[in-house]
């Protein structure tokens, strides 16, 4: 249905691209928008009296407005970054470092991407904050309720043993219970880039708030925003990050959304030009958000390209895309679960999961799987997928991963299954 909009598939007709979780292919309209910026509208933004500069500014700010409308936010709450990872660093540096102190708690999960772990490890080393990792159930879902039952002030149970169902020692070094007031930040991925699991963010946030947790909530939307309709008001989140290149847009552009009040309180990470009001020998005064966080010249054509990507997604309709993808997900689960010796790391039902499939074939290493699939022009990823904590949880060093997007079809699933058959043939000595 959508494949013909993506020129790479015309140029590489044999390509079966199953690595959209790593980066997405680009539709012609995005390519045209970038080219058109260069050929017709290219100038630096926010300065310049001349017409061309004004047109460039309109295109750039117009894209900001499109991003805002996509996620139910206001334009002044949209910060353009390099990617989702940068956005999390901005929050770690500009907000968390400023407001958290020793022994404050940050809640993460074992399924997080390194981008939502490493900045917090650095903060732990710098400030002495505690990191708590929500565990994963054997159905590859997020066990978020276990945090609530470990909070002090919850309905008490008879013995400490009853708290140990999910490995209570994870939650605090010495205490058997956690003080909810100490939890200052909860940072979770909305969709796992390995398991495909959709975490019920709205439910998590509301149940945590009801349990007395007064933390800020950061949502890593890198894998969710490209595939699902997201409304930050409905989620009731405080921060959201995502990347353009995973949602049909150019690389080098990301989005950080933050509640207006929080962006006002946050310090900028990078400082310099474009983000100042005045500069003297002794002082520099920042602009307001979002300009405060956009230092130097941004990825001008990239931002415009992202705007075009959002236009494309919205004209296709996020709900329609989700429905089409769910069909492929169901079909893929059906076919993959029928393969003897295939182990799936992720929910085996289509409910609350996207079409990201991590798997292993017998004891064949994911590298070798990817190598042999490559011969049939099937592109999958193999390795730890920037989720070494999760790999450890799963008891493997890496997995093979096939991830689908709106341009993939059921035929692609069939080709993958045939390819997996080939892999098995090669390794049957």
């Amino acid at each position: 249905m959508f494949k013909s909009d993506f020129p790479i598939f015309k140029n590489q007709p044999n390509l079966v691209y199953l690595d959209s979780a790593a980066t997405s292919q680009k539709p012609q309209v995005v390519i045209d928008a970038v080219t058109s910026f260069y050929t017709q509208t290219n100038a630096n933004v926010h300065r310049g009296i001349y017409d061309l500069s004004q047109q460039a500014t309109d295109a750039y700010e117009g894209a900001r407005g499109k991003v805002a409308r996509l996620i139910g936010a206001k334009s002044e709450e949209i910060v353009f970054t390099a990617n989702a990872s940068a956005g999390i660093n901005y929050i770690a540096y500009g907000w968390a470092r400023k407001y958290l102190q020793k022994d404050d708690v940050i809640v993460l999960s074992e399924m997080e991407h390194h981008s939502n772990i490493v900045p917090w490890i650095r903060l732990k080393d710098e400030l002495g904050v505690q990191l708590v990792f929500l565990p994963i159930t054997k159905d590859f879902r997020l066990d978020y309720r276990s945090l609530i039952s470990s909070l002090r002030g919850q309905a008490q149970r008879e013995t400490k043993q009853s708290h140990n169902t999910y490995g209570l020692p994870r939650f605090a070094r010495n205490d058997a219970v956690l003080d909810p007031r100490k939890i200052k930040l909860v940072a979770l991925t909305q969709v796992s880039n390995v398991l495909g699991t959709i975490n019920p963010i709205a439910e998590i946030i509301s149940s945590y708030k009801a349990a007395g947790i007064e933390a800020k909530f950061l949502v890593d939307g890198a894998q969710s925003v490209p595939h699902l309709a997201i409304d930050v008001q409905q989620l009731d989140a405080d921060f959201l990050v995502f990347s353009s290149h995973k949602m049909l847009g150019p690389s080098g552009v990301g989005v950080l959304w933050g509640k207006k009040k929080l962006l006002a309180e946050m310090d900028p990470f990078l400082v310099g030009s474009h983000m100042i009001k005045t500069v003297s020998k002794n002082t520099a005064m920042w602009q307001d958000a979002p300009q405060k966080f956009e230092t130097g010249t941004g990825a001008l054509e990239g931002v415009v390209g992202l705007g075009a990507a959002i236009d494309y997604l919205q004209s296709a309709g996020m709900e329609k895309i989700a429905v089409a993808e769910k069909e492929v997900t169901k079909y893929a689960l059906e076919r993959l679960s029928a393969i003897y010796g295939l182990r799936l790391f992720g929910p085996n039902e289509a409910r609350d999961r996207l079409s990201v499939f991590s798997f292993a074939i017998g004891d064949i290493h994911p590298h070798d799987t990817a190598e042999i699939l490559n011969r049939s022009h099937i592109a999958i990823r193999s390795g730890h997928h920037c989720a070494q904590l999760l790999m450890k949880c799963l008891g493997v060093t890496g997995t093979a991963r096939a991830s689908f997007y709106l341009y993939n079809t059921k035929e692609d699933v069939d080709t993958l299954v045939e390819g997996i058959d080939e892999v098995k043939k090669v390794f049957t000595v």
Partner: protein
Amino acid sequence: MSDPLYREIILDHWKNPHNYGELEKADIDIADVNLLCGDDVRLMMRLDNDTIKQITFTGRGCAISQACSSILTDLVTGKQIKDIKHISPEDFLEELGMELTPARTKCALLSFSTLQKGLQSKLQQ
């Protein structure tokens, strides 16, 4: 079936690796990991003067890294350290005779480079 990379001989080394296991009282015991993907290898050697009397390996990794570790241990057993140090990565790859992409070359050379590191640090002692 003749596969340019996964030749029967490679698959044989993968399924039945030579010299796999831990070695007691090793003179050299060195481990390394391929950070890109998580292949890891540990080499253990007993020396007799400047000759590798026995060498074993353990590790987890793809078929290429495992097979090359196995082939390597066959190759260097009974050889003198000074001769082994003169083997270049290109020599080893030629010995393997595989068609490797740059990514898989790392897999193939993991145990080789680990061996060279281990011999280097031994000589410096």
